[in-house]
């Protein structure tokens, strides 16, 4: 009974980590960059959703759409400010610029919402009565998270494989210069990538919000877990990101249940260090661009 509970809980949080990881992979697939502000996009969108749904009483599904749109715009803005003006080979500047952006967002969130109470609660959307699936107890919101993750995964896999824009993004990631030479507007591709990555983070946040408390530092926590998932799955692989997320989520849940709850926080760090040291291309990553 404990096992199935832990498993379900692990799968749910794992799906969330997978979503955050998807955001990383989308950006990385197009730009070769890891956005250190990804966690803060998640956090900020969550707060916006709280403001829309709880404070202004807007319907949940509309909130979802608005938050995702907001996330998209935030991503585009970040690209304009912290990525486009920079020399793409100057990794130090690129990383520090997104780190700085992350902190600005975090500080803003703290100023705007953190004043009254540092932790904000989002009311449950679905009924909080658990359903029984077989002999596993599940809360409907958890199912919503899983469904949402699966949907986003499918949408983006198809996007990269079938649409022209998706292929342009892959081309840009492979060889930006060649892509530019054949007429691809690489600048626009980068902006789109950041925007989509942030939109995915926003979606993840709105799905998560009913299950957890919101606070300004939540961004960094999800950033690391999402990154652990992404790197485990291989930074080029969309399904790998989701699978990585599930693995991290389940491992975390099991470790927390069977060893000690404090070990839960440790797992993403260990995953990141171990994977990057031993097998930087992760489980499913294709030939890694120079790590």
């Amino acid at each position, binding site marked *: 009974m404990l096992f199935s509970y832990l498993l379900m809980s692990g799968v749910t949080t794992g799906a969330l980590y997978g979503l955050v990881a998807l955001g990383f992979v989308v950006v990385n697939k197009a730009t070769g960059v890891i956005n250190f502000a990804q966690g803060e996009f998640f956090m900020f969108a969550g707060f916006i959703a709280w403001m829309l749904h709880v404070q202004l009483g807007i319907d949940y599904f509309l909130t979802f759409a608005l938050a995702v749109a907001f996330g998209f715009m935030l991503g585009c803005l970040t690209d304009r400010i912290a990525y486009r003006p*920079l020399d793409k080979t100057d990794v*130090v500047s690129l990383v520090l610029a997104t780190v700085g952006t*992350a902190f600005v967002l975090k500080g803003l969130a703290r100023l705007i919402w953190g004043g009254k109470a540092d932790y904000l609660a989002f009311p449950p959307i679905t009924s909080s009565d658990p359903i029984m699936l077989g002999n596993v107890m599940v809360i409907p919101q958890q199912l919503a998270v899983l469904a949402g993750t699966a949907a986003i995964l499918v949408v983006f896999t198809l996007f990269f494989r079938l649409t022209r824009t998706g292929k342009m993004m892959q081309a840009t990631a492979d060889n930006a210069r060649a892509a530019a030479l054949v007429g691809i507007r690489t600048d626009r591709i980068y902006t789109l990538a950041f925007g989509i990555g942030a939109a995915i983070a926003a979606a993840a946040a709105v799905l998560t919000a009913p299950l957890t408390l919101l606070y300004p530092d939540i961004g960094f926590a999800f950033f690391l877990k999402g990154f*652990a998932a992404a790197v485990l799955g291989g930074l080029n692989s969309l399904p790998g990101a989701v699978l990585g997320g599930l693995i991290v989520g389940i491992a975390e849940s099991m470790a927390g249940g069977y060893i000690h709850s404090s070990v839960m926080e440790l797992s*993403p760090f260990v995953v990141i260090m171990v994977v990057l040291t031993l097998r930087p291309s992760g489980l499913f990553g294709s030939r890694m661009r120079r790590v």
Partner: protein
Amino acid sequence: MVAPFGRRNVLLALFAAASVLPAVANVYQLFIANLMLVYVLLAIGLNILVGYAGQLAFANAAMFGIGAYATGLLQVRLGCSFWLAFPAGALVAAAVGLAISLPALRLSGLYLALSTLAFAQATQWVFLHWESVTFGAGGFKTPPLSFAPLPIGKPLGLYYLSLALLVVLFQFAQNLVASRVGRAFVAVRDGEVAAQSLGVDLLRTKALAFGISGFYAGIAGGLYSAMLNFVAPEGFDLFQMVLQKSMIVVGGLGSITGSVLGAGLMIIVLEALRAFKGLQEIVFGVLLVGFVLFMRGGLVSVLKRHVRGWEEPLRLPQRAPPAAAPRALEAAAGGAEP
């Protein structure tokens, strides 16, 4: 020819000011000044690693913590005197730095940043949860520090100890970066492959850079633990790391003097914003992004351009020169033949 605002003179002036400060400062101001000295040490070490050797590592705050914890725990758990625990703590931090340079060898850029970040978080976790050794979240007090037989109290004694150490370590760093070792760092930063082809051993060079930054951070940590007489997990977190990064970016990557200026200024900003944590995060974030975008070489690059006599050795990371002449030019010049 005397250059009134030359780099050497400015540094001497700062040193003079720092030496006489205790005569005019109150307890709080002295504490802040001591804090500045500690952060200058951190910034110098970090700049050697990030600015000179080009290793984008995010573990410095963790080394700072390791230095503080090691110094404190050796006193509290093993009963060592501060004068033994302090250098030992710095060496522990240096050793950890060396240790993480090994896996770091295969990683660069983003991945190095993230794995060192993960390491830093794991270290935080250990500080927080390994309660049997580290006393956990509440932290612990360290024994009071006495400078006997000298007739001076702790704040004053510690301040001058910090200042003396800073002068020595500043000069050491300055000498180092202008030497064969320093050039090897810059070579690794600017062209790893070419550096190897000239005989530079990547592992040794990177390990050295990590070890040195670990040592400087460890010294800073030991001093910090003595300043507070207290060691706890907060204070060595991500915000710390961003603070240190902004110091070296604002001051100037690839400049030891820049680290002095950057650290001093950032501490002033930090103190001015003491009451508003949210504002602190915004300000440092904006500074980081702003300087990275508009003043990549930091304050030192501005001083170098506008202040006569500011001899700053060329080490700041330069933008890539224009791309090499394409082959078409060669064909046009009649060089190529089938």
